[in-house]
Structures are given as structure tokens and as C-alpha cells.
């Protein structure tokens, strides 16, 4: 279980990016949503140790991980799929899946992770993660790496972005299979209704604060209404 207690994050100028965030995450699928700039990605970076909070405490299964490095958190079972995957000159898909798994993998085991994200393993396994891969391909490889880690807490930052041709159903299937293997929590930052629809819990952030937390039945109707009701600009002729 992940607990966030009074987590805040300020810019150098003192402006709050996140303010007094209090959350517990123990469910199977937890979706974090909210408008652009609401602090979703910052929250993910604070949980994974990439950014330090300006205040508050983070507990993973009761252990205080607030002062721990990225590596220590990863070793304790935190995984993070980046919104924009990183390219590496020279490292191959196989190298990265092996590093993610943390152990030697047979070719067929590495290939299984690729097949699961809809990539032809034979075609990709020995390719470099360089500029020759498209954004969508990199995104799927990123998901395959996270899948190979199989940790108790996994955070995906907008996993659906850039994988238009790959059906949402396949992506959701990946999450379900991942849960079957890890029995951990999968946190998904997303704007997509179909992803929010599988969530056991939805967290809505707005202006750096938790606006609402609840089940999809409680949260989805209000989000969907809000997204279609665009108030007229005062004085416009439309």
C-alpha cells in the first residue's frame, strides 16, 4: 500500500505545484486524472523519487521512503513508465527488457513481453532503442519493460498516448495480466474515459490539489459532464 501524507511541491518562486496531497493507494487499478497542469506527472515523479517533495511523507507498505533515491524505491518495488520514453544509442530492446527484469532472460521470455504489447518480437528484440523507432513503438517497448519488472506498485504516465493503432482493449489486457502476475497496484495517469472506466478508484487533481476521490460510479459522471459543458466566452456571438 502506498500512502501520501501532506505531500507538497513548490517551485523556486514559492508557487505550489502540489499542495497537501493525502492519498492511500491499495486498489488494483487507480486512475489519476485532471486537467493539464494539475500536477499529475509531478505527483508520479515524487512517488518514484525523480523529484523531491517540499513537504510531506511517502510510505510504501508502512516504510517511509520519502528520503530514498530512485534506485532504492525501484528496488523496493516501484516501477514507472514514462510519458515520453527515453532513447538509448547502442542499447537494444533485449538489453533493456533484461535490465528491467533484473535477471538473465531467455530470448523466448523477452519475446513474450514484446508480443504482449503487440510487437513482433523477432523484428524488435535486437533493435537499438534509438531514433529509428517511432514514438508509438517506444511507448509499447516502455510498457513491455515495466511488465518485465512485475513490481508491487506500477505507475503509468499517459500510457495511451501515441499508441492509437493499438486497441485500447489490448492495453487494458496488459494491465489485467500484469495485475494477475503481481497482485500489486497499478496507477494510471490518463485522460481517457475507457481507461478511467476500468479503475477501481479515480483521483481527480486540480490546481495541485485533490479535488475528488472515489469509485468510477461516483466520479465519472461529473467528469464527463464537465468535459462537455464549455461555457460561452462572455460577449461572443456564438
Amino acid at each position, binding site marked *: 500500500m502506498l500512502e501520501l501524507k501532506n505531500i507538497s511541491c513548490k517551485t523556486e518562486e514559492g508557487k505550489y505545484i502540489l499542495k497537501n496531497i493525502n492519498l492511500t493507494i491499495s486498489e488494483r487499478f487507480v486512475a489519476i486524472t485532471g486537467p493539464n497542469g494539475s500536477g499529475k506527472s509531478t505527483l508520479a515523479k515524487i512517488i*518514484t523519487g*525523480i523529484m523531491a517533495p517540499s513537504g510531506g511523507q511517502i510510505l510504501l507498505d508502512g516504510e517511509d521512503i520519502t528520503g530514498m*533515491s*530512485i*534506485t532504492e524505491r*525501484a*528496488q523496493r518495488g*516501484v*516501477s*514507472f513508465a*514514462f510519458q515520453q*520514453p*527515453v532513447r*538509448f*544509442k*547502442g*542499447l*537494444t530492446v533485449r*538489453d*533493456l527488457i533484461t*535490465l*528491467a527484469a*533484473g535477471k538473465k532472460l531467455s530470448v523466448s521470455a523477452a519475446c513474450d513481453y514484446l508480443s504482449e504489447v503487440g510487437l513482433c518480437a523477432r523484428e524488435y528484440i535486437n533493435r537499438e532503442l534509438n531514433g529509428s523507432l517511432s514514438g508509438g513503438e517506444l511507448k509499447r517497448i516502455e510498457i513491455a*519493460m515495466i511488465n518485465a*519488472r512485475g513490481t508491487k506498485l506500477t505507475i503509468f504516465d499517459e500510457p495511451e498516448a501515441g499508441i492509437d493503432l493499438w486497441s485500447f482493449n489490448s492495453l487494458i489486457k496488459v494491465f489485467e495480466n500484469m495485475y494477475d502476475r503481481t497482485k500489486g497496484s497499478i496507477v494510471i495517469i490518463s485522460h481517457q474515459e475507457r481507461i478511467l472506466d476500468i479503475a477501481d478508484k479515480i483521483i481527480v487533481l486540480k490546481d495541485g490539489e485533490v479535488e475528488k476521490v472515489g469509485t468510477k460510479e461516483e466520479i465519472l459522471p461529473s467528469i464527463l459532464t464537465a468535459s462537455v459543458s464549455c461555457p460561452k466566452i462572455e460577449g461572443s456571438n456564438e
Partner: protein
Amino acid sequence: MDEIQKTLLQQVAGIHEVPTGAYSLRIDGKLVGKNSSENIEIVKKEDLPGIDIYIKPGTKKESVHIPVIIAQTGIKELVYNDFHIGEDCDVTIVAGCGIHNGGAETSEHSGIHRFFLKKNARVKYIEKHYGEGDGNGERIMNPTTEATLEAGAYLEMETTQIKGIDSTKRMTRGKVGPGATFVVHEKLLTHGKQYAETAFEVELDGEDAHTHVVSRSVARDSSKQLFLSKINGNTKCTGRSECDAIIMDGASVSAIPEINANNPDASLVHEAAIGRIAGEQLIKLMTLGLTEKEAENQIINGFLK
């Protein structure tokens, strides 16, 4: 051979014992063994230190090993090796030099390798340079490669210097004939106070000649690297040179490209990029559970693979 010599041989040629087939083995400044095969003749030069290697036309899928090992401190040598590759050959040549310097004097190997590729000959040339030993004596290597490619010939050169060479000046020249291709892949890592200079000069003389020179290097500690590349396109031809360097600690890297198109149909490109390891690469690998140091090593090993 003793253990030190065997280790050096393993490092530079990937073999543990005296090679089979065509080979020449030079240890501590002397030619200690050579063997010709049916299609590959190795002849000791009379006037200069070094050998001539003659490969019969049409020889396919054969290889030659010509490693050099220096395990005594204070040896300095200049060796001339000439490779005469017959028409329509398809062969692999493995060279390389390993120096173990456990003493106080400088050990130095300078090799001048000349390649003459006849029509449509294909050669893969693999060259590794390696140094070790805890003496104060410097380990210096100055390899020169000169290649002349006739029509339709193809030479691919893989040159690697990953460890232990204090100072190196590497000169590679190519004269590329019609429809011929000259490819160079250089991998270089310097550390400590090492200095490495590499210079490429390619003359694209024949119509549809092509060259592709790629250098990937890592400079650590306070080491210095200088990369010079010059491609002259003298006719309808294509040429590309790439220098990609990772710089760390207090090291310095300079890349000085020169491309000269002496014909309107010459198409030449140069790319150079020097920079630190990207922070996001380190972070990505750390989120997989690697420490920062482990992440750095993975990135460098991958980059130089």
C-alpha cells in the same frame, strides 16, 4: 606463450593460442611465428620489419590473424604490413596490438598497414588496441592504415581502443575507386590522462564511390580526444562522416570535420555531437533498479558496443 601474453592475445584477437590457418604472430619486437595457407601467403619483408600478405583472387570466407604483443617494457617498434587482396575475394583480417607494460620505460608500437584491394574484393578488417600493466612506463600506439580500393571493392574497418593506451595517434587514409565503398567504425574510450587523436582522410576518386566513417567515443577523467575527418569528393560520389562522443568528468573532446566537394555531383554529409550522458537516460535506468554508476556503465557499454 606465458599467461600475460595469452591474456593480451585474447584481448586483441579473441583467441587463446597460436591461431590456426594463415597467421603471423609478433611478440616483443620479433616475428615469432607465421603460417601461410593454400590461398593466403605471408612473406616476411626483407628490407623493413613487417610482412606482405598475398591473398589469391577468388578466395572466399577465409581469415588471417596478425596480432602483435608487447609484454616487455621499453620496446619500441615500427612495423610495415602490406595486404594484397586479389579480385573477387571475400576475407576477414584480424589485427590488433596488446601492450603489457609492467616497467618504467615507454613501450610503443607503430604499425603501418597498407591495403590494396583489387576489383570487387571484399574485406572486413578488425583491429583492436589494448593496454595493461601497472608500471609507470607509458603505452603508446600509433596505427596508420592506408587503403586503396579498385572498382567495386568494399572495405569495412572496425577499429577499437577501449582500455589502457596512454597516447595514440590514429591515421586512416582511403582512396576509393569507382563503385567502391570504404566503411570505418571506430570505438574509442579514453580515461585518466590519456590522449587520443584520430584522423580520417578519404579521397572519393571513382564515380559512385562511397564512404561512411563513424566514430563513437567516450572521454572520461581528464583525458583528451581530437577527431579530425576530411572527405574529398572528387567526382559523383557520396560520403558521410559521424562523430558521436560522450564527455564525462573533466575530459575534453574536439571534432573538426572537413568535407570538400570538388564536383557538383558529390554529396557529402558530416554530423558531430558531443555531450554528457542525458540525465533522462540515467533516471530511466535507475527506475529499473540500477544505481547511478551501474546506469552509467550500461549506457557507455551500449554506446561502444
